[in-house]
């Protein structure tokens, strides 16, 4: 890789050991992907829940935090993905004190690096949305795919260590979605139905993600005759990234790099694969139905203020079944807003638990299932049903209103 004088000095240790270690790690990754040089980034977003970090990862952060302040401070504004416990509510979920303590240690270490603990995977809805062409080092697949596709910003998936390295150096190797050539469409899907709710947008993302199947494929969706909003595209992208490791998509006439079909591709437009309502029904049917539901989860991604409001309208004055737990995860910013606007109160009076700064699958989900005797799980998130089966749950997907009805009666109606 070509290094500037500044980068060479950093590599030689002129700006301290944390930055030297960070740029060495970045050079290895850059070489792996044939990056020619570095690109400066305006923000970093670190995924660092303790379930992923483990004790070893927390100790790694604490070692960095032990360096002098001038050497350890991040070089660009740096924010965080959800945490593994909500410090106010973890005991109610039978999560362990040791996890909460590990979380406190991880947060303290990151704060001493100058990281802003936003604890959110919807920073584009709650903190600051990126701008077209802005280079970022974002660390949550849902955040990356939304920022790349909807905003036209430029980021690769930057896992926790890589986002932290970018935060310390202020740059990232220039490969993948920082390059014009990688951002052109690779495959085409034609939509033959109109998604009717967030879950259908998520399921559509799942179908495309499964067909795309690789980080390097850029799916293009055409013939969309409806106008999806931020929450629709949030579920669509998060599911696509989860099922297919996809980091960028285009929707013709809707997202900024696809004003028309030809602009979305570099040269010839490939043959389209049609996606029909039958495909959607087959996806739903593959999960089946639960007569008894142990836990209903609204998360992955965290809920926007508008989703929180919709849930409160569905649950107002009603009561969740005694045999079912109802969990809702949102960002700390939205939680404060919901507290202020009376939304939290409505949800809690109905028996739901509103969690702040966490996301269900990042919360030691396997151990929570054992401690709470949860097996059957219902959610409106296509991303969550994809992830959570690996943690020993039997997940089923249904739209928000169906999930709420199941939570009230303790199971799904046949």
């Amino acid at each position, binding site marked *: 890789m070509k290094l500037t004088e500044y980068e060479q000095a950093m590599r030689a240790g002129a700006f301290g050991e944390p930055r030297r270690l960070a740029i060495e790690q970045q050079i290895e*990754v850059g070489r*792996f992907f044939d990056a020619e040089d570095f690109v400066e980034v305006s923000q970093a977003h670190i*995924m660092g829940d303790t379930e992923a970090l483990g004790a*070893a990862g927390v100790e790694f952060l604490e070692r960095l935090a032990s360096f002098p302040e001038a050497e350890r401070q991040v070089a660009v504004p740096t924010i965080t993905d959800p945490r593994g416990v909500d410090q106010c509510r973890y005991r109610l979920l039978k999560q362990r004190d040791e996890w909460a303590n590990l979380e406190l240690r991880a947060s303290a270490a990151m704060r001493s690096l100058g990281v802003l603990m936003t604890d959110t995977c919807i920073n584009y809805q709650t903190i600051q949305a990126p701008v077209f062409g802005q280079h970022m080092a974002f660390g949550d697949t849902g955040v990356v795919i939304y920022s790349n596709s909807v905003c036209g910003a430029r980021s690769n998936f930057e896992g*926790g260590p890589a986002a932290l390295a970018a935060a310390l150096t202020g740059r990232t190797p220039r490969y993948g979605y920082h390059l014009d050539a990688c951002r052109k469409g690779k495959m085409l899907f034609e939509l033959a139905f109109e998604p009717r709710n967030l879950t259908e947008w998520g399921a559509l993302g799942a179908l495309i993600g499964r067909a795309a199947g690789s*980080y*390097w494929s850029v799916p293009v969706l055409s013939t969309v005759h409806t106008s999806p909003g931020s929450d629709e595209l949030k579920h669509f992208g998060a599911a696509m990234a989860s099922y297919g*490791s996809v980091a960028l998509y285009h929707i013709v006439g809707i997202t900024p790099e696809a004003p028309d079909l030809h602009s979305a591709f570099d040269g010839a437009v490939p043959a389209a694969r049609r996606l029909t309502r039958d495909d959607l029904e087959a996806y739903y049917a593959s999960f089946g139905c639960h007569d008894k539901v142990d836990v209903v989860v609204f998360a992955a991604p965290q809920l926007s203020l508008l989703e929180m409001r919709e849930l409160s309208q569905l649950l107002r004055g009603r009561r969740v079944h005694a045999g079912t737990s109802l969990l809702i995860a949102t960002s700390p910013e939205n939680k404060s807003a919901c507290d202020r606007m009376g939304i939290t109160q409505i949800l809690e009076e109905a028996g739901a638990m509103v969690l702040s700064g966490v996301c269900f699958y990042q919360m030691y989900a396997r151990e929570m299932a054992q401690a709470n005797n949860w097996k059957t799980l219902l959610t409106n998130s296509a991303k969550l049903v994809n992830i959570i089966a*690996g943690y020993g749950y039997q997940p089923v997907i249904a739209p928000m209103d169906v999930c709420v009805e199941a939570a009230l009666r303790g199971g799904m109606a046949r």
Partner: protein
Amino acid sequence: MTDRSYRGHVGIGPKVTGIALVAKDDFSARYDLDRLQGIFSRAAHKLRGQSYVGAILVLDNAKGGVATAWMLYEMKARRMAPAALLLNAANPIMAQGAALANLPLLDRFEADITGLLKTGDKVTVDPAAGLVIVHGA
């Protein structure tokens, strides 16, 4: 009995020799593994129930979320990691995780690596040379 070798892209991490565990399936540490027990746990995975600890793990594509980047480091610190990862197509997360964990990672081979190797093969992985050697094949 001769050795045969396959070429991939230049990789990450040190040279290592071990026994291959192969499947035509994808890989994510978050989605597929019970990391405490060191086995594949996702019901639909072709290696379900099998231990990956110390193996030269040979799979198709990297998939899923960003968690694997930290998880490789954490697994290695507990000595519960595979010895190396050979994939047809890695993604940035695998590369970043391998760089932090100093775990050998190789991808982009001349042909489908899950077809070229079989479970039980004794292989040497040389990331700096971008080479996989199958011994006594």
